[in-house]
Structures are given as C-alpha cells and as structure tokens.
C-alpha cells in the first residue's frame, strides 16, 4: 500500500499483528528513508563535531536543522546566496527543519504570541522582532529542507489554562493555512502540520480532524516532551495515531529516550527527533542496550572493553574488523570533558545506537516479532520486571503487549 504527494511517497511495508507498529518507506527529494526512524539533530548545520561523511556512515539519511538558529547564523541572505542548507553543509541526504516556534518558547522567555505571530526580543541587539508563519516558511524555503514544519502556537502541555490551550490549538490550525498559502516550493519541500491541544484528548481529536482535512504530506504530534507525565504523553500519542490516516508518516516531536521510542513505535508513530543522544554524549554518557553508562566514572578508567559489547559502530566493532577504531572505555574516560574527540566518539556511538535500534525494530515489525523485540529490549535495560516503568507497561497494555506477564 502506498500513497504519494508531489514530493513524498509513503509506502507501508508491514504492520505488527499485535501492536499498532508499522514499517514503511518514505521517499523524499533526497532519497528514501526507512521508518520507523530516529533523526539526529544538527542544530546549527553541524552534528556536534561529526563530519557529514561520518554521519552518512552511521546510515543516517534524514537529519534535522533548526530554522531559528540558521535564521540567526548564517542568516537567510547567506542561505540564498549559497543555495540552501544541503549545499551549505555538504549534506546530500534529507533535511527536516522545525518552524523556529519551539525555540521562541524554550530559549526566549520574553516571547509573546499574538494572532500575527511570535513577538520576541532579538538575541543580537534586543530589538523587538516578529516571527510570522509567512516568515518561518520563507526561511525554510531558503533553507530548502525536504520536510518543513508549520509555525505553531506552542504551550507548555502542563498549562492549566484550558481556554488558552484551546486558543493555541485553533490558532495553530489558522497558522497552518497561512503556512500553506505562503509555501513557495510544494514541489520539492513537504510541509507537515503539527497537532496541538495539550493533554486534553478531546482537543487533540478536534485538532486531528482539522489538520487531516488540510491534507499535508505528513503529520506531526507536537507540544509534548515538555515535562508532562509519561502516562499523559502516551495517552495523547495513542489517541492521535488512532485518528491519523494510515498512509501518511507520523512524527512525534522531541522524543529520544530509547524506552520512549519503543513505546511510541508500538503506539503507531514513525518519526522522532531529540538532541538528548548527542547532548548526553558530550557529558560523557554512552547509550547502550544495557542502559546509559557514564564513562566519566572511575570504574571505567581501566576498562579496556569496547563502549558497548556487540555494537557495530566504528568505535565498538572488533579491532580486527574493517573500519574499526578500537576505542576502549578507558580511552573515552581518559579524554571525556578534556578533549573534544571523546565527545565526537560518544556522539558517533550514540547516533549509531539510536539509528540501529530503529533498524532492528523495523526488522522485527517486518518479521512480525515486534512484541518479543520490545520484551527483550526492556529486559536488557532493567534488572527485573518490577523495575519496569509503569507508564511503559500501561501504554503497551493498550496495544496488546504485557511486559509483566509473558
């Protein structure tokens, strides 16, 4: 089964017979990508010390850039002069950009939202500035990313003000219309809508109906990952995916913990992004199938094993194999927080881990053994079933997987 819009083809490859997990292939202007998928975040057109060549070698074919940051540096003029972000950063694969709205809220506490757009003080000189849906789309058109996001009115999900939440949801719908009207390159850039509505499932359902009616090539679930309870988060994702059309990619924004990824895949989501894997790498943390290891701890000072046993990344694979660097935990420990190379190595490992987790999940879905895959996944991270997070157990029960009883 497949569906096409002008610049995106979505092919559903397989569905899990128990959960709502799906395996699919999405073809974008810069080539096909396999879903479910984790997208690493190259905020300022660079993935934190990795060369585009190294990123490509992890198998990454779709990464993020941030519109807000690229708009400040290098700026729209430079992007226009150079010919877009792909050429600018030497990346010949796909790019997704956010709208810049999230950074307004997360970085600038002085931002105010009006019907016109988001008002904020320029971080350069403190002058008042305005980010409108039209301006956001114009920036993203200059960036030339394969997937662009609408500007939305983002509120903290935990906001108790129902009226304001509803206003934000309805405004996001109106802003989508303005984004669609302002979008100059629908033939080569895919505009995704963003479902808003906080933790109120009714509001989310209403938003889904409005957004789906606008028939964008893909759909994002936004406003989450802002400190809400994990149970609430899972309920929202589960409610939205049930209402979304089957033959469109579903993107849950800002998700990156391995447990979250697995639960969201089971709930029927396809795409995820998060800065956590690369940020935590710079703090000396390695993500492994047995959990997160802080390699700055003294216990790793003389540990001459690989970062993660059995991992296939260029740091960890056995020394005698082609392309292996033979990195040990002791070496990372030695340089963590002292030389940038330690951060680069852990970034490489963590990105590999995230992409590989999604590759393995996809295979499991195709071979229809995804429930078993999730069970093994949790069993490796936690010492026993009693310590499994209850939100994950509950969320997975809603899609027919019981982690506690086998």
């Amino acid at each position: 089964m497949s569906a096409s819009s002008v610049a995106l083809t979505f092919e559903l490859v397989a569905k899990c017979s128990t959960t709502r997990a799906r395996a699919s292939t999405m073809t974008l202007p810069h080539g096909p990508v396999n879903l479910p998928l984790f997208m690493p975040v190259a905020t300022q057109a660079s993935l934190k010390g990795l060369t585009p060549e190294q990123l490509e070698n992890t198998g990454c074919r779709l990464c993020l850039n941030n519109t807000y940051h690229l708009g400040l540096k290098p700026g729209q003029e430079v992007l226009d002069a150079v010919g877009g972000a792909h050429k600018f950063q030497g990346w010949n694969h796909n790019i997704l950009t956010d709208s810049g709205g999230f950074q307004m809220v997360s970085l600038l506490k002085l931002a105010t939202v009006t019907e016109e757009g988001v008002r904020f003080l320029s971080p350069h000189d403190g002058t008042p500035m305005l980010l409108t849906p039209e301006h956001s789309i114009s920036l993203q058109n200059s960036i030339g990313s394969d997937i662009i996001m609408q500007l939305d009115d983002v509120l903290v999900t935990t906001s108790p003000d129902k009226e304001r939440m509803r206003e934000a949801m309805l405004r996001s719908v109106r802003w989508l219309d303005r984004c669609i009207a302002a979008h100059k390159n629908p033939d080569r850039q895919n505009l995704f809508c963003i479902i808003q509505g906080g933790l109120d499932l009714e509001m989310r359902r209403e938003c889904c109906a409005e957004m789906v009616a606008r028939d964008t090539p893909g759909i994002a679930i936004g406003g989450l990952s802002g400190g809400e309870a994990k149970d609430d988060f899972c309920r929202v994702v589960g409610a939205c995916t049930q209402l979304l059309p089957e033959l469109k990619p579903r993107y849950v924004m800002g998700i990156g913990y391995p447990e979250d990824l697995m639960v969201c895949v089971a709930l029927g989501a396809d795409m995820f992004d998060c800065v956590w894997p690369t940020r935590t790498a710079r703090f000396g943390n390695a993500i492994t199938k047995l959990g997160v290891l802080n390699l700055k701890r003294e216990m790793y000072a003389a540990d001459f094993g690989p970062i993660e046993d059995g991992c296939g990344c260029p740091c960890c694979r056995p020394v005698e194999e082609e392309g292996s660097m033979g990195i040990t935990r002791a070496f990372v420990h030695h340089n963590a927080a002292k030389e940038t190379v330690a951060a680069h190595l852990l970034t490489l490992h963590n990105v590999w881990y995230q992409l590989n987790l999604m590759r393995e999940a996809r295979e499991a879905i195709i071979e229809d053994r995804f429930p078993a895959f999730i069970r093994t996944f949790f069993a490796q991270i936690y010492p026993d079933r009693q310590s499994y997070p209850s939100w994950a157990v509950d969320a997975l029960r809603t899609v027919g997987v019981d982690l506690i009883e086998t």
Partner: protein
Amino acid sequence: MTNDSQEKPTAMVFEVLKAAIIDGSAARLGRMALAGRRSVDTPNYLAVASRGVVPHMTPDNVGKYLHSGGVYMALEEVIERPQQYSKRQTPIYDTPTSHGRRPLHSFTAMPSDLMTVLSARRLPAVPSPMGNSNASISIFTSTGYQVLTTKEYQNAVETLRPDIAIPLADLTYGPITPTSKRALRMAERTDEWLKNWFADEDASADGPQQRDVAVFAPVLPVSYSIQWEYLERLSEELSTRIAGLAVYNPDVLLDLLSDYANLATLPRLSVSAVTTPHHILRQISLGFDAFVLPFINLVSDAGIAMTFTFPPSQTTPTLLPLGVDLSSPACKTSLAPLSPNCTCYACTAHHAAYVHHLLGAREMLGWTLLQTHNHTVVAAFFASVRAALAQGEEAFEGAAHQFALRYEPEFPAGTGERPRARGYQFKGEAGGEVKPKLNKPAWGKLDGEGGGLGLTRVRAKKGVAPAVAVAAAAVVVAGELVESDAEGGARLETPPVSDGVADVDAQELNSLPR
C-alpha cells in the same frame, strides 16, 4: 655487555637517500622505516597529540586524512593521579596487548600505520616550579605537578612501547636562560641519565625486547661547549645504541656533526617547536630530517586555513599570506575551497562559507575541518620539499629562497573565537600572571540585573592574538644560546626573516593569551 647488546638497534632503519654536496646546505633526503608502520620519507613532520589524540580528529579521520610521518605524545598527559584515587595503578600501564598492537597504540586507538614518538613532556611544556632533581623531573599532569623518576619513565617506555622514545633530559622550559652553572648541570644529568638508561636496559631481562623501541637521544638547548662531554659519550659509547637525535636547539647541530661524524648517519628530529614554514626550511637546510610541529594545532584553533605552497606560486608581486582567517566576513558566502587547488576532505566536500559559519557558531566541526586541511597543507609542503631535494640542492635552495621572499613572515592573527581551552595545559604557569580570557563569556544577564529573565547571548568580540604565540614561547625551551664558544657564536637560531617571533622578548611572549 654481550656482543648481542652491542648490535645496532633494529627497531628502526634510517637511510640517507641523497645528501647535499653544495656549500651552505646540509639538506638531505632520507627514509625512516619501522616494522609494521608506513615508512616515512624525510624531511617530514610529526603531528602533536594532546592526551593521545590529534586535537579535534577522531582516530578514523586521523587514519584517513592525516598524512604526517607519525604522532608525538607526552607521557605527562596520560599518567595523572587524581587525588581521590592516588593509590590506583595508572590505567594506561594496564593496556592489554591485543592483536600484536603496542600498548601505546592500543590505548590511544592510533591507526597502526602511523608511528608514535613518546616524550616525557608536552611541546611546549608548562614550566614547573619544583624543578628537577638528580633522578627525576617535574611534570605537569591534568591533576597537578607530579614527580617522574628516570626509572618510572624508563619503565613506562618499556610497558607502553612507543615506536620511538626520547629519554629524559634535564630541561628548564622557563623563559629565563639557565645560568652556565645550571646549564652544566643539565648536561651532566642528561649524560648520567642516558648512560643509566642503557645500563639498565642491559641489566633488564627484557632488554632485547625493549630494543624494538628506537631511542632518540636528546641534544640539549645549551651551547655545544657546555654539553660536549655528553655529546662525546653519545658518539663514542652510545652511537650504536641510539637510533636518532632529538635536538632542542637546531644551532647545536652543526658543531655536533663537524666533530662527531659517526652521528651523521642518525636521523635528526627537531623538537625546537618551530612556528612557521620559514623556520622549517631553514632547519631543513641545516640538515634536519623530521620535525615535531605543535603550531599546526594552534593555527587551526585560531581559525586560520593555511594557504602556502612550496615552491611559492609565481604570480603575485606582493607578499603572500601564509594562511587566511576564515572568521573574516569575506568568507561569508564563499563557495571556494579553503585554499585554491587543495584536494583535502575539507576542501573537496566543503567550502569556506561553511567553515566560516561553524567558527562563528562555535561548532566543533569547524576546527575538525581546519585540522584536516592544515595537516594536509603541511604534508604537501614536505612532499614538495622532498621533490625539490630530489632534483638537487640548488633546486631546493632556490625554491626556499623564493619562499622566504614571497611569503609573509608569520601566520595572520585569527579574529575568531577559539575552542574552549581544553585543559590544564593552558592554565597559568607557575609564578606567572593569570592569562586574560580569550573568548567573551557566552551568556550574561540582560541589562545587568536580569532577575533571571533575560539570559541573553553576549555578542562575542574578537580576541585577537597571534595564532602561534604559545608555540613561539616554546622556542625558548631553556633560553637561547648565550654563546662564548667562538665557533658556535655566529650560528644562533634566528628566523630567516626579520622581525619574526624570535625577536620578541620571551617574557612578553609568555604573557600573551593563547
């Protein structure tokens, strides 16, 4: 001593392929070969590692893009003792020897075709307030000053097995020229230490095994007349035991070679921390074969892309710069490579505009790409030098003369922000004043009292400093030669161009920000 131990060390083979026959040039072509490593055509250079890594380059990129002869490492960077774990065995000494790799290679994940050179101290090294004793030197680790005995250093070499080791020398590293009394003691101690080094090696059961480490004897940065006894021992007793010379002041070389012809066949490694290609050319003329070059890392950190070629391009009448400052606004939209016709990864896959952006955004990839590029430029420079030498000494000396005329004496000052000074080695030296911060703080309060509201990014103003100021300070390893010896006096180490860094007062250099 048995006959066996008298044999020429087999760890390294050096052959001189072509030596100068004209007056005024001792330049020569050679080849260093070590078992299991890529053979190194000389003249060539060694990259300088920091804590076992070439700064900003992961080992896979080092393997692909670093075309140096090898990598220079300092033991003081890998043997720190954190206070709370002061009793622990230094982790690096436990590195397993798997897959036939030497422990130093294994620990640092160094690609196996590159050779490693181990010394006790960084280049340039932070002067220690404690000074050295009769059987130890003072080193500066990430957890503070530490005493390194001659015995521990020798054991470290035995355990880690670098390809080349430079035995301990009694060096002062400060900006102050040692008194003649101190200089004499430097020579006596170094002499004693090297003598004991080989005596211990013979006594040790592992003696023969250790001979797969080539020993490069240090030649001190004091005048020839002060260290002649030591040099005589090198020539008469130890010439068959040492595989090369590590020379801290290039001007001692001429006297040494004229008096001790049997040392002439040894490769000569310059550890004088030169700061420009002009200095390199001069030392090649003096007869140096290999160079440890810390300035490459410093130039990259300054945001400078090297642009020099050898011989210089013939087209412009004006002085050419040795590099371009990629933080300059001129690079903002430039899709050109970092330097014309460069074929390195950074120049073929990327362009100046991208590196300009990365430097401005303080993204680490900017320095990674600059390192890739600058090391490629230096490697190409040495390859061209060898090609000229192969044509003949006149070709080389002519091109070197052109180079001195065409290029500016120094690298431009970088106007961009530097990467965060990553470590202890950049902290203030003992007794010295606190260095001013190079980069402006990234975050401050909006309008002074922000009440937590306005975290705002402060626009960074440029910190302007000569790219190689620190390296320049390092030229002063132990003060210049203050020569009384009639023959040596005329051949002080001065740069081939006027108003170079060596003219600047050493004290002033030391106080410059990095």
